[in-house]
């Protein structure tokens, strides 16, 4: 069945990216938006647009029933949830199934089986997928925690079963720390996810975060599209992602890919998904969790495989078979993604919403930017601070790094702060350039050096002159026509007036 119309239940760059894919496939698009997003590009570019409510997500993008109502009203055949918001909400997926609106993602059953980390660990065992030693269900008591920890040996990691983003997580190095850590993790998990269930696993030292992209159709076919390395993280949040990983060879890639595909199939998984692993220094990989949706970082996989994952998601959701086999997948070149955030790395990474008063975006060969921003856009304070995903592709990792540094020099974001300088620092760092990275790499780097911009006296002299010239063009400082700066007058206007008088 071919979709005539798809509702995009999301905002920002991913909503725009999905709208573009639908347009390319000849499918109509319905955007939804909160009051903070009336002027957003996804609202401008969609065929139809409907208001959800006030800015807070709970009153807008998380209102599943309202979104389903709009889908019915607009006769949309399907809903694409993007990432975040309702994308991993099994109840919403089930509501779509009941309402006969296709949810572009896995069935709610698979989402449930893999959504909780403890039950996902049980599935991993059932298909003999390596995972970190530890419990496969929630810890009933502190005593049980002590028992498990003693069995697997310290250091251990306490994690929230419903967890994500580092919340409800505690590393424990000695038995006498366990009690307080257990209490803290449980209450933090309770507050963050409404479930205090925590479990315990062996702490992997200096792990790399490496994940496998899988695609499964509804006819039992499943392929893996290679790995992404996401070891550059700040406080358990991904900052840079790349494909391929510098340490993954063909053999490891096929073993991880095979395990991930087997895992997904065993849970009846369909559509696009990502199986996350920790990889230790001996290149052993351990199952971490599965993300049952499209990932923020999917573009790096698209660039090295030459495929379009959103096109394929829609194809699969329409009931289509995967148009290729595992052996048809060939990786070529190297792609690196930088998550450009509205935050100030020079000032404690304070978030920085507000109006973008000046925007010069980079371009040129090998640069892909997925963003939903423009000069004049007011970045809302209610949502995550991602402004854009700047992706560099090149024949190899080294050139991709230099290409991104070139693009960062072209990039100007004014009016709000951004973390552009964070990426200058990382991409120039020796350890990053030689791929000596693990999930602790960035926090160590930031502890060692603060992100400050290099300033030099001659720079300040040029800036003083530039500032004076900008001021000379402002009417408040006298007659702008006396400014020595050239290029301020538009030459057609006079011509137009001349012509008007004559006509």
């Amino acid at each position, binding site marked *: 069945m071919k979709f005539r119309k798809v509702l995009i239940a999301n905002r920002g760059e991913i909503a725009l990216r999905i709208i573009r894919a639908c347009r390319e496939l000849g499918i109509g698009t319905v955007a939804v938006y909160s009051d903070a997003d009336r002027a957003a590009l996804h609202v401008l570019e969609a065929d139809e647009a409907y208001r959800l409510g006030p800015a807070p997500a709970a009153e807008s993008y998380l209102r599943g029933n309202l979104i389903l109502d709009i889908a019915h009203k607009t006769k949309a055949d399907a809903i694409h949830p993007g990432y975040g918001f309702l994308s991993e909400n099994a109840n919403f997926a089930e509501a779509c199934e009941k309402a006969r609106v296709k949810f572009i993602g896995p069935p709610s059953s698979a989402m449930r089986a893999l959504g909780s980390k403890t039950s996902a660990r049980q599935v991993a065992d059932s298909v003999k997928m390596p995972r970190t030693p530890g419990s496969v269900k929630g810890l009933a008591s502190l005593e049980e925690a002590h028992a498990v920890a003693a069995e697997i040996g310290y250091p251990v990691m306490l994690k929230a079963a419903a967890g994500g983003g580092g919340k409800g997580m505690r590393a424990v190095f000695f038995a006498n720390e366990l009690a307080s850590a257990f209490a803290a993790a449980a209450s933090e998990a309770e507050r963050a996810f409404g479930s205090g269930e925590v479990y315990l696993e062996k702490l992997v030292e200096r792990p790399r975060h490496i994940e496998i992209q899988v695609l499964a159709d509804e006819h039992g076919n499943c392929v893996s599209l290679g790995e992404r390395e996401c070891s550059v993280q700040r406080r358990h949040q991904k900052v840079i992602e790349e494909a391929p990983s510098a340490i993954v060879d063909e053999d490891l890639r096929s073993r991880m890919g095979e395990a991930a595909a087997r895992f997904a199939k065993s849970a009846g998984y369909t559509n696009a998904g990502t199986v996350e692993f920790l990889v230790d220094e001996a290149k052993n990989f351990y199952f971490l969790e599965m993300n049952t949706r499209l990932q923020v970082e999917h573009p790096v996989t698209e660039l090295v495989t030459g495929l379009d994952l959103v096109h394929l998601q829609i194809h699969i959701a329409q009931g289509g078979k995967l148009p290729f086999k595992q052996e048809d997948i060939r990786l070529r070149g190297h792609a690196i993604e930088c998550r450009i955030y509205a935050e100030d790395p020079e000032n404690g990474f304070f978030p920085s919403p507000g109006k973008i008063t000046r925007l010069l975006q980079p371009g040129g060969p090998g640069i892909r930017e997925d963003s939903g921003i423009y000069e004049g856009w007011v970045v809302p304070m209610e949502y995550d601070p991602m402004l854009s995903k700047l992706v560099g592709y090149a024949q190899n990792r080294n050139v991709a790094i230099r290409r991104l540094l070139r693009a960062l020099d072209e990039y100007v974001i004014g009016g709000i702060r951004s973390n552009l300088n964070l990426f200058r620092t990382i991409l120039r760092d020796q350890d990053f350039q030689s791929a000596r990275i693990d999930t602790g790499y960035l926090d160590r780097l930031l502890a060692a050096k603060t992100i400050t*911009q290099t300033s030099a006296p001659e720079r300040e002299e040029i800036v003083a002159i530039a500032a004076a010239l*900008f001021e000379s063009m402002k009417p408040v400082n006298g007659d702008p026509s006396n400014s020595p700066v*050239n290029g301020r007058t538009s030459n057609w206007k006079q011509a137009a007036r001349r012509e008007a008088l004559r006509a």
Partner: protein
Amino acid sequence: MMVQLEVNGELRRVELVPDELPGRLRAVLDGEKETEIQAHLLRPGVLSLHIAGKAYRCVLEEGPEGTVIHFAGTRIPYRIDDPRSLKSRRSRAGRHEGPKAVTAPMPGRVIRVLVNKGDEVQAHQGIVVIEAMKMQNELKSPKAGRVIELRVQPGGTVAAGEVLAVVD
């Protein structure tokens, strides 16, 4: 024309002497250093400067915290040194004495107010907690002293650059 400004906290005097050719001029910096310059505005806020063969892109940012020039990957703030402006007078008076404001670095919602008016606070002691973009951020006192003003209460929203409290 003569322009007085404060660049990165430094006071600068720039004299601009136009040439007969459009876009060409001489600039005299701080009354001594003289340079030949070619200046062309490509579009509002984007200035192309040529100085002795070198090409420079200077981009103007106007925002709640004032004017900034983006140059070679750095943000360099400047302010026209206007004798009428209280700021300028204060900056000339020196930034390090007198009452200091706790200002919001970004718009957001006030989650908690950690002090009361009249409280004695230490430098870097938390004053207000503001939430924006799903993150909570504690704003700290710029100096040791007494909270002489407190302009916010929990639940309120604040604009970037807004003064939340004053410590003296």
